[in-house]
Structure formats: C-alpha cells, structure tokens
C-alpha cells in the first residue's frame, strides 16, 4: 500500500494546506510508511467478528434538554490566535 504524490496533493487541498514539491514527496514517503506499518492488521483473521460502529459497551446514552451556563466568552476566546471584540478573527475565506 503506497500513497502517491497526487494522493498527498488531494489530501492537502482538502486540508487547505499548501505543500511544496519537496514536501509532497516527503509526505508521500512518510504516509506510505505509516500505512505499511499499520498494514500488519490486515493479517488478523476477523471473519468471526461482526461489523460494528462502536467499541463502547453502552448505547442510547442521552442527556436532558436543559441549558447550563458555560465559561465566559473572554475565557473561551483567550487562546484564539486573533480576535476582534467578541468575535474570533480568521483569514479571509472565499465561499
């Protein structure tokens, strides 16, 4: 299993990342290495195991619809890289 340069380019686009040609090559090599490493899982015999969407033992866990106060906006925005008044400020995004 290997990841091509084009695969990396596509993933980078979805992640809104710009990678140089060199970085594309490096990423392709490294991601391929990771997949090869993980590929060992393919060898496990899971024919007797049913497909599942979760490994959690419980299901149907829900909460009542009761609003609770949260932290103050100032505290929540404290780690924001940039803010303007009570807004988070980000680079221009074209729709």
């Amino acid at each position, binding site marked *: 299993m290997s990841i091509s340069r084009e695969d990396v380019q596509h993933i980078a686009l979805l992640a809104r990342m710009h990678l140089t040609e060199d970085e594309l090559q490096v990423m392709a090599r490294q991601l391929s290495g990771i997949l090869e490493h993980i590929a060992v899982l393919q060898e496990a015999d899971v024919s007797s195991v049913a497909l599942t969407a979760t490994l959690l033992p419980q299901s149907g866990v*829900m*909460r009542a619809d009761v*609003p*609770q106060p*949260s932290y103050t*906006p100032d505290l929540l925005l404290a780690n924001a890289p940039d803010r303007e008044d009570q807004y*988070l400020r980000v680079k*221009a995004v074209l*729709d």
Partner: protein
Amino acid sequence: MTTTAASGVAHDYEIVIGLEVHTQLLTASKMFCSCGARYADDAPNSHVCPVCMGMPGVLPVINRQAVEYTLMVGLALHCQIPEFSKFDRKNYFYPDLPKGYQISQYDLPFCRDGYLEIQLDGQTKRVGVTRAHLEEDTGRLVHIKDGMGDAYSLVDLNRAGVPLLEIVSEPDMRSPEEARLYMQKLRAILVALGVSSGRMEEGSLRCDANVSVRRRGETKLGTKTEIKNMNSFRAVQRALEFEAQRQIAEIEAGRRIIQETRGWVESKGITVSQRTKEEANDYRYFPEPDLPPLTVAREWIAEIAERLPELPDARRERFIARYQLSAQDAEQLAADRPTADYFEATVAAMTRGDEPSRAKAAANWLNGELTRLMKEAEQEVADLKVTASGLAGLLDAIDAGTISTTQGKTVLERAFASGEAPVAIIQREGIAQLSDTTELEAFARQVIAANPKAVEDYQRGRTNAVQFLIGQVMRQTKGRAKPDSIQPILIAQLDALSAE
C-alpha cells in the same frame, strides 16, 4: 403552472425537482452540549463552550429532546424509523465548523422512506421523503473588507451545535409550484409539531433544491444543478422557474448542463454559479467514535405517536366537517398552526349565532381584513395585539348590528395598532350605529334641506336620488347610520314634502 413553462419550447420539457430542507429544532440547549440554543440577537460567542468550539479532548452528549423532535417529524411524514441509528463525522475544513467535521448521520438516519401530500388543482399529490436525519448547525461568518483593502472573516459560534434536522425529498416534484407547495406543507407540519419556528427569513428553516429538466417522455434524469440561498416560499418558486428556463435554453442552444451549485440572487432574479473548492463527495464520512449508536426503542416510538398533535391535513378536514368552511378557507387557516389556533379561539369566544355562522365570520375576517393588516405591517398571528376574544367581541358587535361592517374595519385597524380591545374602542369612541329614529330623522331633515337639487330629482321620479341622500346621511353620521334604517325615513320625509 408558470406562464413560461407552459409556453412554446418549454412545454416539450419536464422539470424534475427534489428538495433538501434544513430546520433548526426548537430545543432549549444545543445538540451535543448544554449551551443555550436560543441565541438570536445575542452578543457573538456568548452561547459557546469548549464542546461547541471544538476544543481538544471534549466529548459530545446527545440531546434527547432533539432526537424526540426528529422522531416526531419522522412519524408525521409517515417514515420508517429503524431500530438502530448512529451518528457519523462529515469532514471538511471551513472556519464556520470549529471541529473540522460536522456530526451528522450518513447511512443510518433516524427516519427513512416517508411521504408528504400536497394539494394542487383540487388533486392530492404524494411526494416521497427519502430520509430525515439529525446533525448540528455551523457557526456564522461575517466577511469584512477593511479600509486598507485587507479582507478577513469574523466567526460567531453561537449557532454552531444547534440541532439541525435535514429532510430530503425524492425527485418527485414536476413544477416550481409543486416545490413551493411541498415547502409550505412541510413548514406547516414542522410548526404544528412545535419543533421548528418555520422562519425562512431568519434562516431557521432553509431550502436547497436539486433541479433538472428532460424532454417529455424521457425516463432518464437530466444533469441536475443544486440551487441554494432561497429565503422565502416565493424565492423557491421564482428561483426554480428561472433555473428550469436557463437549463432548457442551454439544451436548446446545444450546450450541456454542468453539474454545479448555483446561488439564487433575489435582487436580480437569477441563479449564478458558485464555484466551490471542495470536491464533491469527499467528506470522508466515518462513524462518530465519541457517540455510542442509538437503539430507538419501539415503546418510545409508540409513546411519541400517541402524543402527536393534530396535523394540518387532519385539521383542514375537521374545519370543513365541523365548521362547514369552504376548502379554500379551511386550507388557508389550517396551514399555519398559530392561525388555526387563533381561528378556533375566536369561534369559541363568539356568543351569537350558530357555530358555522360564527366560523364563517371569523374565517372571513381572519383571512381577509386581518391578513391584509398583518401583511402591511409584516406581522404574523403570533405578533397580533388583537386577541382572539377581542376579535370575537368585534364580530359579535357587527352581528348584533351595534356597528356596521365598515365601522368594524375601522375599529379593527385601531385595535390592530394599539392593542386596545375592540369593544372598548367602540364604547369609548361612541362608534355605535345610530338606531335612534328621532336622531336619524333630524339628520335626514338636515340633508334634505341642504340638497334641494336631489329632492327635485326625486320628485321627478329619479329614485337614485335617494341613494345619493342616503350617502349624505352616512357622511353626516360618519358611517354610524345603517343604510337600511335611513332609507325608509328619507323616503317618508321626501314623500311628505311632495304632498305639500
């Protein structure tokens, strides 16, 4: 049917429409955290917490009420409710989505394979509902261009995480009008259930459309476009009319339809291509590992079904059967729950006549004068200052002959503006009809004395002179006199003059 689609070349084509409707659910708290979900007009980022801001290490917990509302909608739309359901992650990067993914439902939605019925030209048409699934709303972006030409965006996450229900129809609609009727019926059901505010103009109810055209007789679907940004029922119909014509013109000109997303530009009345960088279907859905799947107990479904309120179609039929309303009146009243409630409260509060005659008067005034006033003031029934019992008092006064219909309209206008009870206005302003004969006789004498020409006309046998004189008395009394009571008095006085 639209004039354009019915004419010329357009008639050779069939329009195929499917709708994707999103509605925020009226829960008190958000979908996966306990932040308040009613954020309208509040300061930015004042209803946020580490969960809905997507901070690392936090965990979502499902809001039971949102699931229950979803199941209510599923039952009202005759859907199947599978026993097993789960949430999935829909991955994409955009600043309105703090986690980098939206929690949604992919292959196992709560509701599937239902339908909704619309009434068109006296016929009932069934539109399939493919699925209804629960997800979370995104944040709001404000795009700014400052004086220096720098562009940036401001992010408000109050809306992020509000429960959002997506209802997807089958491509069963064949005209923009059918699409509008579907949208209106769906809104009526959502509002009747009490799960949605139904306010399209505020964006709490949104509609996207998939539309394609094909030559009549063709069974394969044409290439579709997705239309966004339609913020009213009227916009839905207009946008789809425009888009269908555009597609037909493209095909007629020998060009191919490109599958793309197009935005409706209300001010220009056109759709324009919205190039999106995201490649279609590259959301890399996978099961949400932070949320256990849900088993939807059959007992829960049965209990919800038991509690479902009366839905618009059933209410319309009851209005026709019980109040003997016309189909049109019943449809108009039953289509909006607050209006229907107001109507029934008015009929119940009226004290004169039998129920059908009370209902007839209430329907006429509600669908007529009151609707006109609300349209002018851009109000809805929920905003009305005139209460149902207030309107009932007014209609009783008209029925009793205390005031005329014309006076009733004036009183209603004042009550509509001030909120004062109509009966109180009638009493305070002395707007009661003059029924005192002596007083009416005095007015008649005055009018006869002031209009010798009309009297002469009458004596020459021109009976419409009487109508003119009635009008004059009405003017003198500022509409407080009833024409039927004035007429005999005037004629008696005129005849007495002639006999002299």
